[in-house]
């Protein structure tokens, strides 16, 4: 259960310790890639809660999304179109949708647990 969180913390720690110099112009693409990866993370969490998790889909989606988002942002810059805004918009919308779904799933799970506990108590009282 704590392994994914440990992974995130380790990643942040390594990213902070390893200073990878990024030119100012590329920081924007990196930000888009970060957004894509966050989208994948939340999508993965959602799929876990919905019980249709597939590791291959998650990993391929993660890499292709991040890379494609960065590439599209770069291409947009070359073409003089702020294409990264489209990426931000798409990933942002999906991110909030996924978050909403996760919240609802958690809420549903919690309500179910409570209901079950109440039912058990009722049963105990009857005994």
């Amino acid at each position, binding site marked *: 259960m704590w392994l*994914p969180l440990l*992974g995130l913390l380790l*990643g942040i720690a390594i990213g902070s310790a390893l200073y990878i110099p990024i030119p100012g112009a590329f*920081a924007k693409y*990196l*930000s888009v*890639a*970060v957004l894509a990866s966050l989208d994948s993370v939340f999508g993965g*969490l959602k799929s876990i809660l919905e019980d249709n998790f597939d590791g291959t889909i998650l990993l391929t989606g993660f890499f292709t999304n991040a890379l494609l988002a960065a590439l599209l942002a770069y291409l947009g810059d070359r073409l003089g179109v702020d294409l990264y805004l489209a990426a931000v918009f798409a990933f942002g919308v999906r991110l909030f949708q996924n978050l909403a779904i996760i919240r609802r799933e958690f809420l549903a799970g919690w309500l179910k647990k409570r209901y079950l506990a109440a039912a058990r108590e009722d049963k105990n009282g009857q005994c």
Partner: protein
Amino acid sequence: MKLQKWHIPITIVLFISGVLLATALRALAANNATPWHQKNENLVAMIKTQEAEIKKLENSIESKRTSLDRFQRDVSLGKKELEKLQQQLQKLKTLSGMTEVKGPGLTITLDDNIKEYEAAQNKNPGLKPDDYLIHDKHILYIVNELRVGGAEAISVNDQRIVNSSDIRCVGPLILVNTTRLGPPYVIKAIGNPDSLARVLALPESEYNILKMAGYPVKYEKSTRLVIPPFKGSYQFTYARPKEE
């Protein structure tokens, strides 16, 4: 705790996300890549450039001021030098008769002896008028005598006598400084009036001879004479100062 099938992929994804996130944050923090910061940076760079420019200009002002000081010093030195030279030049000009001069002296007026000539001609027609005219040599002698008397500036009919002046005869007229003059001849001399008069009063002086001969000559002392400058120019083509 059992390792579920979703643990490993999500861990990998989160790990990479963490790395990316940290890198992006650090990159943004390091580069200050936001437009606002970029603007600030631009302004800072501009200010720095301007400051460097100001510094350069200040340095140039400093050097300019130093050189200006030097030039001014030179100029003031040069001015003194120039003043000295000008004074010297003025003195030399005065000595060579290039300036108008004034001072005490005397004025001699000579005229042809027309009265005597007419009288003589009445007696003896066919007489040549030469003996009754003022000739160049009379003027030359008188000028010479005035110099003996210490004249410092002499003019004949306002022609300044300088060291290159010529006095010679051209028929009925006289050339002084190659300018034709006619009678009456007014000779002005600046100098001590008494000593000038003393020379003229000598029995063998040309003035006295003319007077004895009956020419209408006269002189008068003056405390304030003005003698004009020499109008021509000196040209030395051959004479050169001897080198030491």
